[in-house]
């Protein structure tokens, strides 16, 4: 008779206690580092990119070790990663409009239509 344990389709990996603790301590240290970076007297952009880099490393450790994505099928992981990163990259198109908003400049379509009216 097939037992519940044998019938499970869970992946065959079992993380060791030492590995779990090591990853936990690394993530804690990185989280503390973010707080240190926040109180450095540097430009906001520099603070942002430093904290983003630390956050990505933290997330990578959590995804690979705590979520065991490093032990899953490589093809599946690659395709999921490519699609997700593509969508995240595509979201970044709006930043130029954010800079325009900061300068309180008119949208480009409005300025071009105003030029057309002036020439008439």
């Amino acid at each position, binding site marked *: *008779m*097939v037992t*519940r*344990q*044998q019938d*499970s*389709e*869970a*992946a065959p990996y*079992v*993380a060791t*206690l030492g590995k*779990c*603790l090591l990853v*936990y301590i690394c*993530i*804690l240290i990185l*989280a503390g580092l*973010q*707080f240190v*970076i*926040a*109180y450095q*007297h540097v430009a*906001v952009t520099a*603070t*942002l990119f430093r*904290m*983003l880099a*630390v*956050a990505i490393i*933290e*997330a990578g450790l*959590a*995804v690979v070790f*705590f*979520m065991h994505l490093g032990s*899953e*099928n490589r*093809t*599946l992981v690659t395709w*999921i990663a490519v*699609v*997700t990163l593509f*969508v*995240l990259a595509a*979201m*970044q198109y*709006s*930043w130029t*409009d*954010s*800079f*325009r*908003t*900061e300068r*309180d400049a008119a949208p480009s379509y409005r300025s071009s239509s105003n030029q057309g009216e002036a020439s008439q």
Partner: protein
Amino acid sequence: MRQSDLTMGPRPAGPARSSPLVMPTKKLAMWLFLIADALTFAVCLLAYGFLRNGSANWPTPFKFFPTAVNAMVMTFILITSSLTISLGVRAAKIGDQDAAFRWTMFTAAGGAVFALLQIREWMEMVDQGMRLLHNPWGNGLFGATFFSITGLHLAHVSVGIIVLIIVGMRCKSGRSDPDDVEITGLYWQFVNLVWMFVVPFVYLLNVSK
């Protein structure tokens, strides 16, 4: 027709089943949900970044005490709960249902403490005059972005606490599948992963130096 075709008895043992999707179906469904949820949070954080970058008077009112200290404590609790759920998943995989129950309950307790700290922080900010569309410090959308992002995260934490309790009780009664604990663990790790991005962008970029 054989007698075994008519009964509802257990299926005969055979070769181990394997999913054609190279991952158990439940786990793949959870991963697809997590990806969609991650993109939802990414959009929220992007919108926050857009508004912050485009605003000339974005406030930075968060003092070291109590806001930054509170964020440190909440981060520590959530990262520790990541460890406890990992240990719970490990216990479930090796068949130790009692240990899986204990670690799952520890994780749920950590989530509950986190939620209470978050709500207490919200109440303190409301006392200081912060609302959804105005505040005493600057751009009125500061509150909207803060409360919506942290509120969405808190909703995820709340759902996670409920699921952890249900899965933990099933572990205690011996009805739990190691897959269920693993899939719940995936969701909880995702909630913590989102917090790793919420803290620097929503809290730490708005501290007063």
